């Protein structure tokens, strides 16, 4: 992997607004969102449920289009999923009829990478996520944590610049979740990927992110972009961690309070 270039902007969102038109009227999910994600950054989108953080991620992923404003990846307007990025969903995204190895190689197969080269990539990333002995297993034979590891391996195998993650550990139990977070950081440090990670867990955001983007409840606006000053590796039990978590939590609770008073 090349040197991290902090000036390089991979993701640029400008004045993005997303409205959904339903029979009951217009719902504004996101309003005038501006965001830049630089090379090698780990950015968490944090906010209460329904704040549009997943919608923002999907727009960056090219799965939803903004009603107004633009989303760019590497300087190009996104109107369909860009080959520069991949996305890891919360669950149910592995294909149950494919083995783990076939799932991990899915992206490469779609890009028509020859079989032997594909096998190389698959082996490399299975090893990286600690699943090298499970290539021939099927998703239903694996635990939830292992399945998400496979989903991460699949995302890495197509060698994207940016990895979008939509609450990838949301369905896991607390212990597995903490373990997966540590592993993801190790992978991030090894591969120098740019990661944009959606979560509603303050703890997760404080543990993982360089930057925490706090969104307001509907309509989602960026309330604050918080630079995370804690040095890595981070210790969840430290006083500094606790005080930062408290601070962020207070911001979120205030936002929810304001929303309830409206």
């Amino acid at each position, binding site marked *: 992997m090349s040197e991290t270039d902090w000036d390089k902007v991979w993701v640029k969102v400008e004045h993005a607004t997303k409205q959904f038109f339903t029979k009951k009227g217009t719902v504004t999910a996101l309003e005038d969102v501006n965001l830049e994600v630089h090379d090698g950054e780990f950015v968490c989108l944090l906010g209460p449920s329904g704040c549009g953080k997943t919608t923002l991620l999907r727009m960056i992923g090219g799965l939803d289009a903004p009603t107004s404003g633009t989303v760019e990846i590497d300087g190009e307007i996104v109107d369909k999923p860009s080959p520069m*990025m991949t996305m890891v969903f919360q669950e149910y995204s592995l294909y149950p009829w494919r083995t783990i190895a076939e799932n991990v190689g899915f992206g490469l197969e*779609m*890009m028509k990478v020859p079989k032997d080269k594909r096998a190389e990539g698959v082996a490399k990333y299975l090893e990286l996520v600690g699943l090298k002995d499970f290539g021939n297993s*099927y998703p*239903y034979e694996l635990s939830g944590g292992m399945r998400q590891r496979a989903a991460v391996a699949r995302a890495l195998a197509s060698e994207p610049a940016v990895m979008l993650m939509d609450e990838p550990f949301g369905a896991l139990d607390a212990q597995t979740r903490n373990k997966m977070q540590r592993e993801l950081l190790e992978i991030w440090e090894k591969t120098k990927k740019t990661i944009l990670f959606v979560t509603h867990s303050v703890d997760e955001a404080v543990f993982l992110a360089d930057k925490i983007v706090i969104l307001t409840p509907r309509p989602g606006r960026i309330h604050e972009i918080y630079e995370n000053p804690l040095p890595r590796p981070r210790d969840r039990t430290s006083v500094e961690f606790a005080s930062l978590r408290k601070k962020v939590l207070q911001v979120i609770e205030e936002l929810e309070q304001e929303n309830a008073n409206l």
Partner: protein
Amino acid sequence: MKWYTKLILPVAAVLIWEIAAILVNNPYILPRVEDVFAVFLTPFADIYGSGSLVSNAVVSITRVVTGFVIACVIAVPLGIILGRYPRLENFCDGLIQILRPIPPMAWVPLSLAWFGIGMTSIVFIIVIGCFFPILVNTIDGVSRVKKSWLETAKIYQASDRQVLSKVLLQAAGPAICNGLRLGFGIAWMSVVAAEMMPGASSGLGYLIMYTYNFGQVHIIIAGMIAIGIIGIAADQLFRILQKKKFAWEALDK
């Protein structure tokens, strides 16, 4: 449950049949088991100039397979399109719902008027019979493919063709296969009934109707048993295919 528990009732039924046949003592009403069994010992023997048990079975199977293949070629692609585009499906739903409950046999007079007596007419009835179960199951299977599976394919730059072959057909495979199995079952029932219509001159349905004229009840029953066995065999074939190709469906919970 052991496998042989399924055989207890059929064996009992044969025993009761044999006892009843002895009591009735009239082969024109209820022949003895061994007389029916004897028909299967000479499967290639001509029966009153109507051909043998095997040759008539081959005729029926050929008709069913022809009609079934035609129905598949139309219903599966159509089902995929309608499953993929809910608005179009909604638009077509009225017509499908009106046509679907009409039994295949109700199409016989119209079929005779259009195609005359013969192979075409019978194949048409079969196509009608298995078209709807295949169509409806394909639509259902395709429309229930998880959105995240399709979006994952898009994220990984899959072309429309790859989405179809690597995701849609795989994911909807179990439902489509189920539709094929149900469709084939109805096709098989339809062919036998269609062959009993006036003008038919071959097939298992024809054979049992024809031998009725001679009062050969043991051949009628032998023909019925042959129809049943072929039906079960086809059904089992689809089940095996389903189990082998789509094992993931039952396990992925």
